[in-house]
């Protein structure tokens, strides 16, 4: 039937075609899934991918959802290129929201211009502090950073829960587990009137540009690529692996913390027990779908943002469960990883063996 044959050289074309192919297969699988659920696939796909973008507000929402995905995805792609596997961006996002949010609550009476920059800065520092734990464990004890960063995610979420159920609960909030609303001066300004699109989107775009420059033009970016592709050559050149681990964790932790504080000081406006629908995890998909390239990550972030919006639209219009979003995201990553096999292998029909004997 079919046979996988190793290519003499990795295919450049497949590197870029593979995400599109994965997207196409995901859509096909989606059709099958909707059919099985008894929903017209045409209506479901329309609700999922077209309905959310029917208005200016919809496009603005796309930017709102894409902001954390792009911010984190771009930063994670640096680490993944260097072979530093930070899986705990969700926890760094949460701890960034806690630190920045804490400052916002503490300064809720202050009404000056420097409150917002301070809040954002503390958010980024909070994410870096949380990322410093797996970086320290990895460089000092050679602990597997995949496990430590992932497990710390749940710790961060529990810390947030503890705070909003306890000391930081809004005194006038009827005992709901929420903080008080942030003051005007600790809230991100809206950049498109009549929508929720906020300053964070511009920060995300700036991050894409900065990361591109980092990779293409700086020594640090060069070191990232060398250590990721040929660790022995990096050692020979005198690049320090430990410093690279620290850099990658600080960069991604800072970006994730910033994304966290942007979420709570932007669309949410207060601290709640749950502040992210898994942006930190989805950003991993975003990074790989975007081929670990800043521009690719930008497009992948928009696509995955659409899957969040589409999930909500499908819930409202067709009464489909929210889990559809997760299923779509999971299928996309699954098919992408499968399609990536075609970068190194090609498919050829297996010649029928000894047809005379058959």
């Amino acid at each position, binding site marked *: 039937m079919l046979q996988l044959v190793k290519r003499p050289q990795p295919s450049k074309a497949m590197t870029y075609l593979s995400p599109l192919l994965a997207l196409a297969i995901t859509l096909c699988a989606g059709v099958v899934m909707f059919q099985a659920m008894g929903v017209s696939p045409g209506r479901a796909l329309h609700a999922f991918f077209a309905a959310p973008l029917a208005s200016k507000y919809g496009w603005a929402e796309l930017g709102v959802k894409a902001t954390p995905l792009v911010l984190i995805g771009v930063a994670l792609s640096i680490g993944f290129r260097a072979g530093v596997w930070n899986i705990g961006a969700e926890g760094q996002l949460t701890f960034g929201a806690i630190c920045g949010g804490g400052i916002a609550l503490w300064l809720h009476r202050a009404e000056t211009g420097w409150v917002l920059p301070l809040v954002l800065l503390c958010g980024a520092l909070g994410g870096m502090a949380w990322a410093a734990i797996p970086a320290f464990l990895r460089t000092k004890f050679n602990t597997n950073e995949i496990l430590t960063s992932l497990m710390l995610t749940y710790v961060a979420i529990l810390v947030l829960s503890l705070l909003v159920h306890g000391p930081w609960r809004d005194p006038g909030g009827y005992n709901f587990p929420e903080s008080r609303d942030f003051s005007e001066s600790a809230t991100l300004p809206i950049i498109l009137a009549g929508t929720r699109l906020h300053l964070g989107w511009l920060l995300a775009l700036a991050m894409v540009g900065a990361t591109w420059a980092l990779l293409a*033009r*700086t*020594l*640090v970016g*060069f070191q990232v*690529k*060398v250590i990721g*592709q*040929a660790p*022995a*050559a990096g*050692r*020979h*050149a*005198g690049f*320090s692996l430990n410093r690279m681990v620290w850099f990658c964790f600080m960069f991604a932790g800072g970006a994730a913390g910033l994304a966290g504080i942007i979420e709570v000081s932007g669309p949410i406006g207060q601290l709640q027990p749950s502040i992210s629908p898994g942006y930190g995890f989805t950003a991993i998909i975003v990074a790989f779908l975007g081929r670990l390239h800043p521009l690719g990550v930008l497009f992948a972030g928009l696509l995955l943002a659409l899957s969040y919006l589409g999930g909500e639209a499908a819930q409202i219009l067709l009464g489909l469960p929210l889990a559809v979003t997760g299923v779509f995201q999971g299928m996309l990553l699954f098919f992408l990883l499968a399609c990536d096999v075609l970068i190194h292998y090609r498919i050829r029909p297996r010649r029928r063996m000894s047809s005379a004997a058959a």
Partner: protein
Amino acid sequence: MTKTFPGVVANREVGLSLRAGEIHALLGENGAGKSTLVKMIYGVLKADSGEMRWMGAPADIRDPARARALGIAMVFQHFSLFDSLSVLENIALGMPADTDRDRLKTRIHELSDRYGLPLDADRHVYTLSVGERQRVEIIRCLLQEPKLLVMDEPTSVLTPQEVAGLFETLKQLAEEGLAVLYISHKLDEIKALCKRATILRGGSVVGSVSVARESAASLAAKMIGEELKEARLRGDGKKRGPVRLEVARLDMPAADEFSIALRDIRLSVRGGEILGIAGVAGNGQDELLAALCGEARAARNNRIRIDGHPCARAGPNRRRALGLASIPGERLGHGAVPEMSLLENGLLTSYRRLGFVKRGFIRRRECRAFVARILKRFRVKAAGDGAVAASLSGGNLQKFIVGREICQSPALLVVSQPTWGVDAGAAQTIRLALRKMADKGAAIVVISQDLDELMSLSDNIAAICAGALSQPVPTDSVTVERIGLLMAGARDAN
């Protein structure tokens, strides 16, 4: 038998005969054609011409299955075992489906007891050491009750203790009538294990000898080739400068169980001098290069001095700042990043010395000019500085890497296998460039397995064996036989 690959005759009318109960050595350097020959014997490759006779009758060994049916078994250098399966499951995979597992397990334990191959059939392969994995492969072969066992460089991955155990097993098997074809380039092993040896050089048989009548030195000479090339590149010894590199009582513990510990290394190299370090592969050459270039660091800083500055605990950057350049033996992945352009690879070791980074940003224009200079001066054939390193032929990439270091005009160069796998023209270019650099006052250490190269290029020569370096002596004062003895571990050149 003859086997030709595009551009190279791997085996040229090679003949070999093996008797039952004999451990026969197939001896030769890397690239001498040993692997090609045994792959033909095992049916993996087909000979262009020639014939094989098995127990007196002509045999057409089309594929490995046919070889196994005849009674030929082979243990490859790289094992084919599934990590997540147990020893028993791995062995059962190669058996007919209706094999009784309990009986198979009993057989495995019988063989394991009988031949001193301790092994637990229920352990998962991923928990086994490399030596234990090799035992699984040997037992898998023995279960077929073979008449000929081929072992391809079996000790290259073993610790000394495991090597001793393996030798006991092989001797016992031979006493019971099994023929063993033992492939190696390690002379001491062959002296310890084999009675006869067939020596390959450059794809041809250069001798079929009785091991007992040969010395390690004469075996080495046959393997490497006695006749020296005329092109002498040695210096005249008049323009010696001050001592640039001094290594004194350098000890380095082994980083893991498969690397070699360096013991009491002493050497010094003056400006204008090329010091050659000979040795059979795997005797500490990689470790010595790592220790000299700063990838590995010694416990005491004063063990290595560059121009008088102690630097044995310094990393590669600090040593480069003192004037060192180094070229590792492995081109792809160590000396260069395979999937990166020549521009980026040019940057790899030069950015500090030549100032290609300003406030963290790479100055591409300056770097581009530097790479263009390398390509021109060393006549590197490449599609410009955007070509990725992996797309260059071995010789061109080596010229590029050597050029990258030489164009930085270092005061001291340490280079490993400068012409390994490089065509003759490129090899000569590289050797001439090294000599020219020494004539300009640089000190050079060349670590090489190519004795011809060292005899023609180096002013002084020493040999490394099991992590210990012999006292360097003037190349004029020694013969190939003496160097061969030193490579085999004799302590004194006289």
